[in-house]
């Protein structure tokens, strides 16, 4: 069973619809008591960093999530701000992140890297895998995903980077560490490419 965390943000039903069409069982989880049976976890997100962190903190699920993610091998996938929440902190907000991946979140142009580009990074762009990952199986080089963000995941270690996307500079558009995966783009809104990636996540063996 894939548990989709409903803390009041992100397009929960878009994930449910995709998995239903794929005949993969999913469950929308809105309380920590429902987390016990989670075999895979999706942490969606749309919005600003502090708003998302506040909603997750207020949901009553943070502690249980933290425990499951850190002490078991249940794979978890963070989406967009859901990915950014997995870092230690973000330049967008003041609250602490979940700290599941030792990294920070930075603004595209204020950090002074690269040339100046239009921010937010909005629209369809490629995500080029730099290592072989089960998440990107069958996704051709031209696979495109929908991005909508002003901040990017700044990895502490090269080994955390799954794919890169070129905007201003080649930033980490998906990352991983142990059982934790994060994608900056919205697979639930990325047509057949996104469906494939979500299917791949469903098929990942326990980490």
């Amino acid at each position, binding site marked *: 069973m894939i548990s989709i965390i409903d803390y009041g943000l992100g397009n929960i039903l878009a994930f449910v*619809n995709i998995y239903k069409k794929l005949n993969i069982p999913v469950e929308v989880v809105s309380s920590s008591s429902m987390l016990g049976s989670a075999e895979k976890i999706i942490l969606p997100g749309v919005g600003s960093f502090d708003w998302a962190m506040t909603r997750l903190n207020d949901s009553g699920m943070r502690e249980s999530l933290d425990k499951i993610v850190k002490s078991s091998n249940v794979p978890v996938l963070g989406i967009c701000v859901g990915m950014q929440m997995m870092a230690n902190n973000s330049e967008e907000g003041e609250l602490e992140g979940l700290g599941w991946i030792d990294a920070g979140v930075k603004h595209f142009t204020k950090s002074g890297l690269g040339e100046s580009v239009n921010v937010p990074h909005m629209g369809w762009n490629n995500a080029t895998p730099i290592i072989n990952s089960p998440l990107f199986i069958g996704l051709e080089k031209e696979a495109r995903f929908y991005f909508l963000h002003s901040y990017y995941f700044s990895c502490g270690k090269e080994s955390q980077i799954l794919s890169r996307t070129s905007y201003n500079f080649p930033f980490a558009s998906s990352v991983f560490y142990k059982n934790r995966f994060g994608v900056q783009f919205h697979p639930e809104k990325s047509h057949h490419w996104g469906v494939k990636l979500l299917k791949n996540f469903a098929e990942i063996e326990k980490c």
Partner: protein
Amino acid sequence: MLRSRIIPCLLIKNRGLVKTVNFDNPKYVGDPINAVKIFNEKESDEIIVLDIDATRLNREPDYEMIKNLAIECRMPLCYGGGVKNVEQIKKIISLGVEKVAISSSALSQPSLISHAAKMVGSQSVVVIVDVKKKRFVNKYEAYTHNGTISTKQEIVKLVKHFASLGAGEIVINSIDRDGYMNGYDLKLVEQVRDVISLPITVLGGAGTHEHMSELVNSFGVIGAAAGSMFVFKGKYKAVLINYPSQKEKDKIITN
């Protein structure tokens, strides 16, 4: 590489899909959910849905309808119509919408832009400016309430202001070109493109793929939106929802 976006813009009136000319004479063209399903199949880059009654009738956004659209949409959705405060914006985002557009409220209370950006993040705050060209001079003014009320505010100053407040995208909507399908007003785009470093989407006038190519060739990565072009087909404007294929799209944006 980031690609230009080709975006159908759907207008909603009484929960039905309509298309206007010069923001007037709405013609019923079908059911919005059905249209969304077709655009899903055609793998549309994004979709903009505007409720053109909400502000005019001073009513709340139709959350039930928005929710149903968001559930159905397999592409990013931008909703606009009747949005006046941050609470409404938060509610719409939590229904599963990626971007919320504000228009007349951005003009009457620009601080809404900064409040919304702080709360939901700039990337989800879109400002739509409906503009008409002034007579005899190369200047454009913003209008509200479906093009009926002039704000006497000039577009270049306005978009700079909106950008400084934290808008994440500006949609420039030409009232003069609406429904004519004879090409975008490139002179209008020229005035705004270089004064802000935000994504820009242009609406009003597109009738052919060539019109979209022209826009992309002139301005690089940009949003090319259209209404009539994606709901009408042929000389007699028969209602037929359509969208360029992947190949046609490549041709439009890489010419």
